[in-house]
C-alpha cells in the first residue's frame, strides 16, 4: 500500500544513473519529514533499475512505474502519469530537482492539480503540516519564504547541489504501479546526445579552484589550471571571468551558474558577491586569497590570505 500524506521525491535519471539531485533530495527529505513517510517516485523503462540506487538513500517507499514508453516520453505524457498518481495517493508534498527536466515537468503537474509550486528552492522545512519553502529571487539578492496554505500537495523544485546526499540504512518498500502510457505524437524525440558538460564536472567536483576578477591575468589563469591538475581540482570562475574567451557561464559558480558543494574550494581573487556566496556556501573547506582583507568572501572562509592571487599561485606551484 502506498502511504497517504507522504513526502514524495520525483526521481530523475541523468543518462543511465539516478541524478545526484534526487539522492540529495532524499537525504534532505528524511531529515525534515518527521513521521511522514518519504517516497521516491521512479518512472523508468523495464530494463532500468533505479530502485537499487534509490534504496541506498533510505526512502520508506519506492513507487516504481515501468514502461517502455518512458524512454523519450514527452513532458505532457510524464505529467499525465504523475498527476494521476498524485491524485490517487494524495501525498502531502512533492519535490523535484530544479533541473531543466524537473522545471519542465513540475509546472505541468502543478497546473493539472491546481496547486502551488515554488521554483528553485534553497531550503525547506515543516512547520506543523505546512512546508516552508525558501527560494532566492532577484538574482539571489533576496530570499523569500513561500507557503501554500490551502491546497495540496505542496510542490517545489530544489536547486541541485544545495544539500549533500548521504546513504542511509533501512529497507525501502517497493510499490509497483501499473502504467498505461499513451504515446504523444505531438512531441517526438528524434535524437538525444549526452553532453560532456563542464557543468556536471564542476557541480560534482570534490575540489575546486575558483578564479575571480583578482585572478584575471593569463599567467595566473594558466598557473591556476596547472595547480588544479596537480590537486585533482576543477576550475570554476565568478561572473566577471565568464567574459574571458576561455571560460563560459558553464564554469560560473553562483546564480545563473552552478551551485557547488566540494570538500575544498580555493577562491583566488574572488570578492564574493551574495550570489557567489550562496553558490558555494555548501563547501566543506573554504580558503580564500584576496588583495582586500575586507572583501565579503573573507568572512565566508575558513582560512584567508591577504595578497595578490598570482603570488600565492606561484608559491603553491613551487611547492607542488
Amino acid at each position: 500500500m502506498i502511504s497517504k500524506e507522504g513526502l514524495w521525491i520525483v526521481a530523475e535519471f541523468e543518462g543511465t544513473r539516478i541524478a545526484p539531485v534526487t539522492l540529495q533530495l532524499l537525504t534532505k527529505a528524511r531529515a525534515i519529514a518527521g513521521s511522514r513517510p518519504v517516497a521516491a517516485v521512479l518512472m523508468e523503462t523495464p530494463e532500468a533499475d533505479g530502485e537499487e540506487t534509490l534504496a541506498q538513500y533510505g526512502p520508506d517507499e519506492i513507487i516504481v512505474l515501468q514502461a517502455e514508453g518512458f524512454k523519450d516520453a514527452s513532458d505532457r505524457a510524464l505529467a499525465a502519469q504523475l498527476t494521476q498518481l498524485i491524485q490517487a495517493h494524495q501525498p502531502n508534498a512533492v519535490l523535484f530537482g530544479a533541473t531543466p527536466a524537473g522545471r519542465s515537468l513540475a509546472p505541468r503537474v502543478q497546473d493539472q492539480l491546481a496547486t502551488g509550486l515554488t521554483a528553485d528552492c534553497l531550503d525547506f522545512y515543516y512547520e506543523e503540516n505546512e512546508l516552508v519553502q525558501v527560494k532566492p529571487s532577484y538574482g539571489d539578492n533576496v530570499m523569500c519564504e513561500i507557503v501554500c496554505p490551502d491546497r495540496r500537495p505542496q510542490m517545489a523544485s530544489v536547486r541541485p547541489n544545495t544539500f549533500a546526499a548521504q546513504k542511509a540504512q533501512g529497507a525501502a518498500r517497493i510499490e509497483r504501479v501499473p502504467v498505461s502510457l499513451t504515446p504523444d505524437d505531438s512531441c517526438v524525440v528524434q535524437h538525444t546526445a549526452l553532453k560532456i558538460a563542464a557543468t556536471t564536472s564542476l557541480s560534482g567536483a570534490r575540489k575546486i579552484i575558483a578564479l575571480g576578477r583578482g585572478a584575471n591575468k593569463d599567467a595566473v589563469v594558466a598557473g591556476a589550471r596547472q595547480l588544479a591538475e596537480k590537486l585533482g581540482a576543477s576550475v570554476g570562475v565568478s561572473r566577471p571571468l565568464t567574459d574571458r574567451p576561455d571560460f563560459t557561464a558553464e564554469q560560473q559558480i553562483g546564480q545563473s551558474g552552478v551551485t557547488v558543494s566540494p570538500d575544498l574550494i580555493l577562491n583566488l581573487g574572488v570578492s564574493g558577491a551574495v550570489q557567489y556566496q550562496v553558490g558555494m556556501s555548501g563547501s566543506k573547506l573554504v580558503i580564500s586569497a584576496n588583495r582586500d582583507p575586507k572583501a565579503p568572501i573573507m568572512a565566508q572562509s575558513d582560512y584567508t590570505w591577504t595578497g595578490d592571487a598570482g603570488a600565492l599561485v606561484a608559491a603553491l606551484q613551487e611547492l607542488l
Partner: protein
Amino acid sequence: MKIVVCIKQVPGSNRVKFDPITHNLVREGLAGRMNPFDENAIEAAVRLREQVGGEVILLSMGPDATKETLHDGLAMGADAAYLLSARAFAGSDTLATGYILAQAIRQIGGVDLTLFGRQAVDADTGQVGPIVATELDLPQATFASKIQPLAAGRLAVERDLGAVTQTVQLTLPAVVTVRAEANRPRYESPIAIQQSLHKPLTTWTDQDLTLDASRIGQAGSPTVVRKVFAPTPPTRAAKPLPEDPKAAAKALLDILQAQGLL
C-alpha cells in the same frame, strides 16, 4: 504562422533594496526593462516569420508602464501587442498568471506557436510557459537552443537540458521556451522604433476576457510569500594564513594534507 510571444517586464536591476521598517522591497526608482530571455523569444519569432510568413503578436500582463516594454518588442519586429492590465490581476502567482495568459491566447485565436523566454530573471521560475501549455493542452519544448520550421505545421526544436541535448519534432500548435543560446536579438534601429509607434497596442482588462474569477489574482494564487529577507550566509572562522606567500602556500598545503585533501 501565427506566433504569440509572452513577455514580462522585470526590474532594471537585481540590486533591490529593502524598506528597513516594513521589510518590503523598495520598487521605486527601478525602471523596468524587458526580461532578457524574452528578447531571444521575440527574435526567434521574428526569424520564423521571415522564414515562413505569418505574424508575431506580443502578450504581456502588468501595470500600464509595461507598454514601454511592449513598444521595445514592437521595435524588434513584432506586428502587434496586447497588454493585460487590471486591478483584478494583481497578486497573481505563476498559476493564476498562466491561466490568464492562456485565456488571452484563446481569445486572440488561431495561434500556432506560443513562445516564452526560458525564465524571467526576477523570480527565475520558468513555470508560466509550461502552465500555459497545460491550460491549452498543448505539447511543449522547453529550453530551446534551436528552432527550425519543418513542413506540415511542425517544428524541429533542439532542447539544451544540461546533461543532454535533445532534438524533438513538435506538431503545432505548441509552446516553446527559448534559451539565450538560440540567437542574438537584433538591434532596434531608429526606423524600427519610429515604425513601432504606429503598430497596434491593445489593452485588455478582466472584462475583455472570459475568466473564472476564482482563478485570477490573489484568489487564484495558491502560494503566499510570507517573508522576504536579505540572505546572510553564516560566517566562518577566517583564520589568516602567514603573510609571506611562500609561508602561506606551505601552511595551505599542510591544512590540505591534514584534511586528507592532497
